């Protein structure tokens, strides 16, 4: 039985997934962030950098390239991974509570984290199913990296959620930020370069070192989908941080504007860090996350639990 209530919540969900902050907003935003990243790196190196529409041209050009014919189930899987990655990243963007009090449910933070993790799982699977030795090296690095940074990333999110008694994104966006939340945000920001494969943690796709890592065998439209999923990951990951930082506004357009501005600032920050650093070795990276950062994350969770006990 379809009641008007279910119908309206369904349309809201669809609107969030497809229009704002879903696909219709997220795809141009993904291209824009990819451009900002390349432009910021170029400016830091004293170059002029690519024109504004560059990621869009790259995408269209890749769509028009010949695509490889791969027989059997392996070929089918290789076609499927980028599509799964794009839909997961788009779903993660759709969950962001940019417009307050429109949809959202208790526990959507957990779903968002799961969806954010899916593209990196797809990258690991893609590298191994491509059968290329460079793909396999890249996938192994991605797997090791994701085990390292995810512990810190999840503990940081957990400390934020535990200190504010909720796993709902819109509730977290409404509540004022506590000092503990800032600690959590700092921990998330430390994890983002690894999540987005940026310097100094650009190990899985290490350009020129292991060719293109897991993407080595991809070409044409499939590669275009990977580029898009990478852009959408940018939007989702920076959007999550922007949601946690942004103060609550009653006017929806002010909230949306502040959200976009904060995302832009985070992209700029990450790009500047990426262009100012060189790639670390994999064991240095793992040691960095397990020895230096984990301590703070565990401290944050313990503090959050104590605060909860007191309150």
């Amino acid at each position, binding site marked *: 039985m379809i009641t008007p209530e279910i119908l309206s919540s369904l349309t809201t969900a669809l609107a969030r997934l497809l229009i704002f902050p879903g696909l219709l907003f997220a795809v141009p935003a993904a291209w824009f962030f990819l451009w900002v990243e390349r432009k910021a790196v170029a400016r830091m190196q004293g170059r002029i950098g690519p024109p504004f529409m560059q990621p869009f041209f790259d995408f269209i050009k890749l769509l028009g390239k010949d695509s490889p014919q791969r027989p059997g189930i392996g070929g089918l899987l290789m076609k499927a991974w980028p599509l799964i990655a794009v839909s997961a990243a788009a779903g993660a963007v759709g969950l962001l509570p940019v417009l307050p009090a429109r949809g959202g449910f208790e526990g959507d933070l957990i779903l968002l984290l799961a969806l954010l993790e899916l593209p990196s799982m797809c990258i690991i699977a893609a590298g191994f199913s491509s059968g290329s030795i460079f793909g396999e090296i890249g996938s192994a690095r991605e797997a090791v990296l994701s085990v390292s940074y995810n512990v810190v990333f999840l503990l940081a999110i957990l400390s934020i959620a535990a200190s504010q008694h909720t796993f709902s994104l819109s509730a977290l966006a409404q509540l004022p930020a506590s000092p503990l939340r800032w600690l959590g945000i700092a921990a998330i920001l430390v994890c983002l370069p690894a999540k987005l494969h940026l310097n100094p943690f650009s190990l899985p796709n290490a350009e020129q070192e*292991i060719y293109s890592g897991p993407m080595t065998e991809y070409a044409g439209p499939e590669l275009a989908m990977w580029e898009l999923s990478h852009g959408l990951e940018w939007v989702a990951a920076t959007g999550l941080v922007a949601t946690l930082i942004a103060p609550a506004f009653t006017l929806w357009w002010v909230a949306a504007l502040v959200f976009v501005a904060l995302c832009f600032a985070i992209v700029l920050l990450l790009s500047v860090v990426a262009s100012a650093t060189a790639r670390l070795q994999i064991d240095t990276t793992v040691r960095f996350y397990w020895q230096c950062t984990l301590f703070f994350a565990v401290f944050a969770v313990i503090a959050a639990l104590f605060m909860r006990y007191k309150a």
Partner: protein
Amino acid sequence: MKLWNKLMCYSRRHSPWLFHMNSGSCNGCDIEIVAALSPRYDAEQLGVRLEGSPRHADILCVTGPVTHNAVNAIKTVYGQVYGPKAVVAIGSCPATTNVFIDSRTLAGPLNKHIPVDVFVPGCPPRPDAILLGVAKAAEILAARGSKPPVADVAPEIVGDPGGNCVSCACSSTEVQA
């Protein structure tokens, strides 16, 4: 559909991704390619990206006089680039084998093995000549679409038309012959 084709042509011209291949070069031209990507010449303004995998590339940049060892590798890598694709021969070596002419270790010049679209003669060519060659190749790419390369079309020669190669004094008109 017509609009889509126009957009595709425009995108192809504005986003040439390179794969750089050395077929026994002395490293002179390779350094000039790197210089073309550096802040002074900034090839990224044209949308150029140096790719790690030939599967991602549109334009294959080949340097060197093509040694016997390199022939199979060149053919393999040329096959790994998906169409539409273009080949730019950078330096005098892949065009004429340059000072190494008649060497028994060489199987060059390059256009004996794969179809070449643009020659950039010079020993080494200047980075701006390389950029001009890449831009020409991107135009050829846009016009070609997904049709296979035609062998009987005369390749483009870019750079200083009257200039002679510093090491062997061959002129760019000799390259054409």
